């Protein structure tokens, strides 16, 4: 959204300290028989070193496709049609599959929602971790075992060395997700893209993983893009929040500031619809209607048909406004400091 804003940086870092990940006007479209689905349509953001950024949106908002675009895993009929993704200054868009493969897992990795789908069910955990290691460097078997055991210990798996000989089905869901995170961390990865990594887990297990991930990010300095539909999860983990709707980032800023003082009507509506913000038993504020089909987006602002602040201006694309470390894309933003 507002790359320039971000370069100044909320923490006022020096100019030489460029963000580890910089996304400019990314567009990922799917060319289907029914038409062109603009799943990601002009997304810009940046991630500082060691920063955890939360990317929040509902289904169909393009948050997962954004994640897949970052690690170069968009399958046909989809492709990145324009824009730029820079990892530590190096352009990723337009790289060959082979080049991306050498980056993936080594410098940028992804953790998926369902750890049963990411782990190979017929290989021991130790074997899978060794393969992940030898894909990018020459390591002896015994050194690979040592590093794999270290990585498992780091994500809170007890008795890690013995667990290397276990198969994925012998782990619980939470443990499997820990293994997936350990694999992502094997190479001192600079950026991890995590797509709904705790959604499939129980509340008590989710809390364990959240607190471990927070510790790890702080210790290792890995940057995280944490994709989720759950504002509360993101707010307890991330320092900055990006809110997506219909393929675009509609609001961004420091997590607590955005949640306390949302400027975009969609963010505000989402917050008001949470039971946590309402008195028990009372009617929840609901956003009317449902998310638009990406095949037939309304003209102008895609949130217009559901928005209670919409006016004539919303028939044209809303401008990006930015102030300090905040940014939002709306013709009629909510006043700063207005009661939500």
């Amino acid at each position, binding site marked *: 959204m507002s790359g320039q804003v971000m370069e100044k940086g909320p923490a006022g870092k020096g100019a030489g300290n460029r963000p580890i990940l910089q996304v400019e006007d990314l567009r990922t479209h799917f060319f289907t028989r029914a038409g062109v689905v603009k799943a990601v349509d002009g997304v810009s953001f940046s991630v500082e070193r060691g920063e955890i950024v939360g990317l929040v949106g*509902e*289904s169909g908002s393009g948050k997962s496709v954004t994640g897949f675009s970052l690690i170069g895993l968009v399958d046909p009929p989809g492709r990145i049609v324009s824009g730029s993704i820079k990892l530590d200054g190096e352009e990723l868009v337009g790289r060959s599959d082979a080049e991306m493969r050498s980056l993936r897992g080594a410098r940028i990795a992804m953790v998926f929602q369902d750890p049963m789908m990411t782990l190979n069910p017929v290989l021991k955990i130790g074997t899978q971790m060794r393969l992940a290691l030898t894909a990018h460097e020459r390591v002896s078997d015994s050194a690979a075992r040592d590093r794999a055991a270290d990585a498992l210990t780091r994500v809170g798996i007890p008795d890690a060395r013995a667990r290397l000989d276990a198969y994925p089905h012998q782990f*619980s869901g*939470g*443990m499997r997700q820990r293994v997936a995170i350990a694999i992502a961390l094997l190479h001192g990865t600079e950026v991890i893209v995590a797509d709904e990594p705790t959604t499939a887990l*129980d*509340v*008590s*297990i*989710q*809390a*364990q993983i*959240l*607190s471990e991930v*927070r510790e790890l990010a702080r210790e290792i300095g890995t940057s995280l893009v944490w994709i989720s*539909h*759950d*504002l*509360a*999860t993101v*707010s*307890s*983990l991330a320092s900055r929040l990006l809110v997506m709707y219909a393929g675009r980032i509609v609001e961004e800023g*420091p*997590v*607590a*500031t955005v*949640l*306390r003082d949302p400027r975009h009507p969609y963010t505000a*509506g*989402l*917050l008001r*619809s*949470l*039971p*946590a*913000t*309402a008195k*028990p*038993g009372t*009617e*929840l*504020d*609901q*956003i009317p209607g*449902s*998310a638009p089909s990406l095949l037939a987006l309304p003209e102008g602002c895609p949130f217009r048909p559901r928005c209670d602040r919409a006016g004539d201006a919303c028939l044209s694309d809303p401008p990006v406004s930015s102030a300090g470390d905040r940014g939002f894309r709306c013709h009629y933003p909510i006043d700063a400091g207005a009661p939500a």
Partner: protein
Amino acid sequence: MNGGAHMSGSGRPNGDAGGFIEVRDVYKRFSPHLTLGDRIAAKFGARVETRSVRAVDGISLAIARGETLGLVGESGCGKSTLGRIIAGIMEPTAGTVAVDGAPVMADGAKADTRVQMIFQDPFASLDPRMRVGDIIAEGPLAHGLVGKADSEDYVAGNLTRAGLDPAFADRFPHQFSGGQRQRIAIARALAMQPDVLVCDEPVASLDVSIQAQIVNLFLKLRRELSITLIFISHDLSIVRHVSDHVAIMYLGRIVESGPTETVYSDPKHPYTQGLLESVPKLVLDEKELVQLKPIVGEIPSPLAPPAGCHFNPRCPVAIDRCRSEDPVLRRIRGDQYAACHLVEAEA
């Protein structure tokens, strides 16, 4: 396991007047189906799973008419199994469920239509080859709640009540979004004129903005039809919002129950405390460092629950007694009950 330990009941004690739904000492075991070959192999020391899962392990509940009970717990705690038993679509291994004094199940079959169920996944619970109108009319026609001539109006009325356009009756389920499908499932349940609705994770598969719409629909139905709701969910904030009473389950047993606000504001059982601490909260102040105090360890396999209090291996305050003796669900104060050796009853 000494099943008798849970006889004393929960929710509110059984036997009191006003128990519209009475769940009494319900057990449900899922035993592996062993062939003769399996049995012989097991005899000779082969590794054949012979243990059974105690999905519901001695639960008693009383729910008043028009009340909403939230049934909370993590995966494998037995909340869905208990819901299905109350709905009469699954037979308990032992124990009884009665609604308004009459059992919901007789001779192992669902006895009547007073309890209806709404499932988590509206993509799986609606027949894709039936029109919405037929989906809704099928039950009432079969049970003679409506005549063929009036069924169209009847369907239209129920669609409207669920917040849908009556014209949708001619469409097929695939033409609807998840939220609308859940409304169709609700309309189908309402068409049976039930006294009780068992809702199993009814909003878990929906987007946040759609969740609010469906939660509001439940609140409205409860207000207008004075229907009794059993709301099964793992989402503690939604349960708090819709329920009058809650029962917290862990590995087949109720560990705590009581009026929702009492339990949420002053949980007594260590598991309830840990669970409430585990829920991520919206952080509105950047200076506030979010403290996550997760419960340690994993949920044990329901095939081999720990002896004594099932929660003892993860409990921060467990003592020796917890490892050997089953705690009984007993009154702590008012309507709040907890099954913990270390919680003292208050006067």
